[in-house]
């Protein structure tokens, strides 16, 4: 029971990560619509940046999984 609660608290870190990803996507779509010839470059950079931002969420996930299975 305590473990599940701790994992639930740990996974809360996903929330700001989602906002960060939304920010990345918003900005890059802004850029794409203003500057359509940069589309392919911006898209590739956007995917890499999204993966980098997602890292925080993945840390939270790893922490939660380790709390449930190991602790």
């Amino acid at each position, binding site marked *: 029971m305590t473990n599940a609660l701790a994992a639930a608290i740990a996974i809360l870190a996903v929330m700001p990560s989602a906002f960060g990803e939304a920010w990345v996507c918003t900005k890059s779509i802004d850029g794409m619509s203003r500057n359509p010839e940069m589309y392919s470059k911006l898209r590739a950079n956007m995917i890499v940046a999204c993966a980098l931002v997602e890292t925080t969420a*993945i840390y939270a996930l790893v922490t939660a999984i380790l709390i449930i299975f190991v602790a």
Partner: protein
Amino acid sequence: MLNTVFAQETGGFDIAGQFLDASSGLSGATISSLIIVGIICLLSFYVAIRARFADPLKKPKGILFLFEVLINFFDGMVEEFMGKEYRGFGGFLLAVISYLFIAFIWGLTGLPSPMVYLATPLSLGLFTFVFIHANAIRFNKWRYFKRYIEPIPVFLPINLVSMWAPLLSLTMRLFGNALAGWTLMTLVYGAFNGIGEGAIRFIVNGIPQDMGIGSFIAPIITPVLHAYFDLFSGLIQTTVFLFLSMIFIANEGPQEGDIEELSVKGGR
């Protein structure tokens, strides 16, 4: 439930890599990893032999052409992102990246994937970590040790902790992604197998237990998830690992601005 499934797949290890049962020999993930290394070794030996006996004046065909494009691409990228003095890193990065990508999509074969076993991403991250510090020593010589007492010697413990940050971030990024995909796929397979078995038992009575009769729904639905969690996620994480490794390693060497400044000063 997941922990027991995990232990069966990796042959007696739990997620943190601890032995659950000491009597089980080589784990499934280790055997998969050895198979991947074998595939890459055989392929590269084959290409090397083909390249040795090929006519350098003719256009390369087939697999030789593919590898020439790949190696040129990597060398060009390394030169563009890291600088001219790192030209030898293309081969190293190509080897690590090909292992990483094949290990990521190894779940498609149905064999236990080595990526969900913490030792694999840890050793991949360790490559980059060792190269970061070896490179720093190569370029900075004895000044390398000065970074641990900057800005004042009181910061030594903090600097010693932050030294491990790149290793941890590289490792956990790969491990978390692979583990998330693996956990979700296991849950989805379990759920659809259960639903299928329940549906069949509802219609036909008296089927003995443990027949695996419910496994006809999952193959219709899971390919989409496999495409996302294995192929797409693997490709993205491979790219991110490649870029981060290059940036981390090249960060330690002399920057382009420094060289320009030095040459300007020398000119005067």
